């Protein structure tokens, strides 16, 4: 029997969903609001919600003091590069695991995921030493490699899940129709997997963009991305909440906009395979 949904019930559900959504979004909203306040009003007690003297001063100070463009460029290179490299490695890996699995495929997948259970700080020392050894400390290429490696299990898992949803018979049909392995991949599998690949790319760009542990520990000035840009405003000599908020807003703005425009893709990608 279909469950009856009354109008009243629907309204309560909608209100509850909005409440939860606003609760989750509140810290970001507060950061954005604070970025438009003068320093004094930013730390006012009781806090001022909207009735403050709106100003763009924080932004101009931040722009003046630090080279936002360089941080932004570093973030784009590191997030984009690590995702691209990860996809290039993960597609063939997920492919073989999904379509020509061996007895150990499940074990390998679980083992890969288990590396995510290790606290990052546990391998900070060896990785730091390796970076010094190879001379890639504070370099973009070093961060691209590290972020690719830490996100690779997730990329492989996601792609594996998408590929598993593609019926093997379709690939066999392509083989019967005379397609070579390359043509099978190019004309049949890839077009069918594009939604999955796209949401994997999106999620990984977001993860890499927001990654703060490795980016803060392995960079100094040259390769520092936006996470370091934010961190530079939380100084021990005194807290400049408004400027810190302005820096945070500028750091998250690009990814927030990207996420907003691709939310449909992201949601469908993340729930893919959940209902069949």
């Amino acid at each position, binding site marked *: 029997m279909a469950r009856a949904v009354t109008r009243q019930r629907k309204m309560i559900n909608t209100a509850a969903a909005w409440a939860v959504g606003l609760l989750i979004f509140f810290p970001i909203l507060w950061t954005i609001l604070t970025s438009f306040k003068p320093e004094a009003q930013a730390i006012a007690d009781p806090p001022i919600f909207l009735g403050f003297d709106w100003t763009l001063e924080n932004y101009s100070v931040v722009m003046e003091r630090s080279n936002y463009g360089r941080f932004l460029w570093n973030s784009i290179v590191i997030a984009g590069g690590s995702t691209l490299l990860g996809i290039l490695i993960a597609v063939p890996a997920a492919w073989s695991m999904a379509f020509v699995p061996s007895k150990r495929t499940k074990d390998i997948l679980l083992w890969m995921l288990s590396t995510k259970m290790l606290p990052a700080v546990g391998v900070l020392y060896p990785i730091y030493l390796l970076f010094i050894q190879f001379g890639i400390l504070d370099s973009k290429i070093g961060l691209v490699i590290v972020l690719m490696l830490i996100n690779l299990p997730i990329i492989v898992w996601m792609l594996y899940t998408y590929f598993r949803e593609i019926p093997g018979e379709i690939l066999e049909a392509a*083989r019967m129709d005379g397609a070579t392995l390359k043509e099978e991949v190019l004309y049949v599998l890839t077009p069918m997997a594009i939604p999955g690949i796209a949401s994997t790319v999106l999620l990984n760009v977001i993860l890499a963009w927001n990654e703060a542990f490795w980016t803060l520990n392995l960079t100094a000035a040259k390769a520092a991305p936006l996470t370091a840009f934010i961190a530079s405003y939380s100084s021990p000599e005194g807290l400049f909440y408004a400027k810190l908020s302005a820096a945070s807003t500028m750091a998250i703005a690009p990814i927030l906009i990207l996420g907003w425009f691709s939310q449909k893709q992201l949601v469908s990608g993340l729930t893919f395979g959940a209902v069949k």
Partner: protein
Amino acid sequence: MGQIKLNQVSKSFGETEVIPPLDLTIEDGEFTVFVGPSGCGKSTLLRLIAGLEDITSGHIEIDGADATNVPPAKRGLAMVFQSYALYPHMSVRRNIAFPLKMAGVPADEQDRRITAAAQALNLTDYLDRRPGQLSGGQRQRVAIGRAIVREPSAFLFDEPLSNLDAALRVGMRMEISELHKKLETTMIYVTHDQVEAMTMADKIVVLQAGVIEQVGSPLELYRSPRNKFVAGFIGSPKMNLIEGAEAARHGVHTVGIRPEHIEVSSSDGLWQGKVGVAEHLGSDTFLHIHGIAGCDPMTVRVDGELPVRHGDTVFLTPNETHLHKFDAEGLRIG
């Protein structure tokens, strides 16, 4: 040309042998049906012929040439899958064109063949649609169209009608049979449905546990099944197999009699029993008779108008000329 010859072909998955070595020849232009219960290896056998599975030992010859190590695309065979296996992101036209594109057929020749196939299969109005916008029957026609345009030496069908509803299945059955008459190309058709096998085949191959139980025309299999398995599998409703005293009277282990070869009387006959379930099909009625030693219930086919009710006592007499006799191993005698 489309003669396919299997020579001591076997298949094992790891330690498990699913098809012990077997020999089989499918003649050019023949409509051959592989039939058997699920898990009998019929689909595996088809996939071995297609080249989608590697054979463990033996040889496959297509048109006299050894095709054992030839990749699927190079065998000149076209396959229609149970799930249709259409490319969901391509229009019907591009689906049908795909094998031609892979083969590098010139564009105008592609168009000519697609138009011809679409006309033959009533798909002309749907060429620009995606598979997702078609019904099950139309999708199956697209899959057949994709197979036809290649002009293969043989068609392989893997339970192509299983996903269709009963009415559509009958219609498509006829269409495929007519296609075979028209093209006169070898067709190998896998099904678990013995009605499909009986109605479509020139030659039926009955399989059980990877072993060929019998090869023959539909009527050969119906009239003289080689063993009890084939006797029970071919024919609907199933043949009644009687053991015990009644079989001993004929000097054998088991006797078999088809439901349509038993006479029913309300006054006298060889066996006496009580009517259980009666299935009324209109033209015929299938009676399930209880209380007959060695075969309970016994199925009998009678005229649709025969006035019998649940619990009635009836007398049955088998037509002796249609009696099948089997030994203790289940093999046919005589």
